[in-house]
């Protein structure tokens, strides 16, 4: 904001805006961004050639874009002091319903040659499937007041189970070529993968929604003090339902992206997506206690595990160190957050 410039001179006792430098220094996001930059610098110093090659950059970005879409939704949920363990399963379920519907609409039940009409229906089916699970989560959390950990642990299992029931336990492998070659593996402006562009757009809209709108403001308020939010007339129940719904829709979109990229429903590959998304969000400075967080932070947080993974490959460290390194950074991030809260609450 640049509001201070235009305002009339302030009286002595009215507060001034703290300099940007100070505000940033106190934010978790700054520290974790520095960690990310330091990691990249270290890997680049050890092996300058490999890190910055276009292919490395592209694959890192592509592999992270699906996770990023999940993590954007997860950021909203965690800021309300909730959690959503179901995102990976909802992703798979949405991919399955989408693929099945596109196949059913195609001659011979094979959508490989399907056109954009069918693909659009497939996208809508994925979004609606995600929305349905999100709505269910939201209603059970906000209206039935069941702890989100339990609700979404339930839908984590149920969504995957439902998907496997629909396919008989094996992957659907027929995906429209037109989808796979454009959204899946296509690029724009010569080098930028379309999948990355879509993830970037989702992230930008998410950042706008969280940071500048009433919806975002209420998300923080509900997570910061639910009773206070209720007393000021905020429709807390409705808001929570909407937040879980949003996360479900984004998981549905991620399912469609994953389908386009892998050309299969990848039944077994998403069992830890939930934890990866949560780790990214928390690494990015969003507090598990609610009320604090940002999408920018989540972007940084999601890239840290990805960069560690790639970096370890590049410098020849056994990749099994990656989860251990992520765990250390994660625990440190949460520890900082708790220390910050303690310092504040003791005032």
């Amino acid at each position, binding site marked *: 904001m640049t*509001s201070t410039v235009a305002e009339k001179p302030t*009286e002595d*006792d009215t507060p001034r805006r703290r300099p940007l430098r100070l505000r940033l220094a106190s934010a978790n996001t700054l520290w974790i961004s520095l960690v990310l930059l330091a990691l990249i610098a270290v890997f680049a110093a050890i092996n300058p050639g490999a890190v910055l090659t276009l292919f490395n950059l592209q694959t890192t970005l592509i592999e992270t874009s699906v996770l990023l879409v999940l993590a954007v939704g997860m950021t909203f949920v965690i800021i309300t002091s909730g959690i959503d363990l179901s995102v990976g399963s909802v992703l798979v379920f949405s991919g399955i319903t989408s693929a099945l519907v596109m196949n059913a609409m195609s001659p011979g039940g094979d959508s490989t040659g399907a056109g954009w009409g069918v693909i659009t229906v497939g996208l809508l089916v994925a979004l609606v499937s995600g929305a349905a699970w999100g709505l269910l989560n939201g209603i059970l959390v906000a209206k039935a007041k069941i702890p989100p950990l339990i609700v979404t642990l339930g839908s984590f299992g149920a969504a995957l189970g439902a998907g496997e029931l629909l396919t008989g336990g094996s992957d659907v492998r027929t995906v429209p070529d037109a989808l796979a070659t454009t959204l899946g593996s296509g690029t724009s402006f010569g080098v930028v993968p379309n999948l990355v562009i879509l993830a970037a757009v989702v992230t930008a809209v998410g950042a706008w929604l969280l940071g500048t*709108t009433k919806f975002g403001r209420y998300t923080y308020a509900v997570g910061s003090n639910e009773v*206070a*939010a209720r007393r000021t*007339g905020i429709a807390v129940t409705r808001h929570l339902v909407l937040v879980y719904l949003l996360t479900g829709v984004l998981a549905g979109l991620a399912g469609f992206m994953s389908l386009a990229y892998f050309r299969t429903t990848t039944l077994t590959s998403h069992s830890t997506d939930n934890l990866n998304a949560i780790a990214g969000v928390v690494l990015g400075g969003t507090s598990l206690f609610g009320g604090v967080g940002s999408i920018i932070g989540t972007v940084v947080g999601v890239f840290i595990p990805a960069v560690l993974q790639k970096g370890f490959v590049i410098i020849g460290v056994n990749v099994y160190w990656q989860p251990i390194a992520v765990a250390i950074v994660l625990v440190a991030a949460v520890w900082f957050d708790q220390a910050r809260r303690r310092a504040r609450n003791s005032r």
Partner: protein
Amino acid sequence: MSSPLLQARSLVKHYGSVEALRGASFEVSAGEVVSLIGDNGAGKSTFIKCLSGAEQPDSGEILLGGEQVRLDSPTTARALGIETVYQDLAVAPDLDPAANLFLGRELKRRGLLGALGMLDKAEMRRRARAEFSRLGVNLQSLDVPIGALSGGQRQSVAVARSVVWASKVVFMDEPTAALGVVQRERVLDVIRKVRDQGIAVVLISHNMPEVLSVSDRVEVLRLGRRVARFKAAETSLEELVGAMTGALVQEDAA
């Protein structure tokens, strides 16, 4: 005395087997500060919750400007111009003072962006700054989450939020309990300012000198019932304590 702005008649409220209010009555006029006092557990907080829509009485009636009203939620009460500072701090500690002041009443931008839900943060900040300075609320910074402020400053923001939006009645449940001497005086000054604007202020406090200095009248609750009413100028500490403990009973008070 002018006709009462807000009136409660024989409110009864049970929590399970606990009878928190047993036919409590109360009135307050515009431009008047009335203190509601009583021992712990007398039912003061419950009473205020009923009058501000946070709880619903089991029986009894509430009249605003002579007309019976049903306060089924705090939102209803606020729409009628009734604001409350709750005893348990009702602020969002992770939001900054301006965001707390405007919580639930956010200003949106004009035009398309506003229609999309985008907030006018600059305008809210500007107005918050003006209101805080009008009410004498001193904050070192408008940018920190209010959880990072001292307890007194947090409470000042909570008080400011209710008086800024109130058009008829403000309830304050022990607004000064957590405050130091200077901040306590500030809150009392705010109370006087608000009263002078013609708003009715209902104050709950355990601090008898404070009650005597700021109130126009005092009503005493005991075991869920009104047991005495005084004009502040005509009463004394001894009388108030006597009424609170049951040593002094006014026959006509209930």
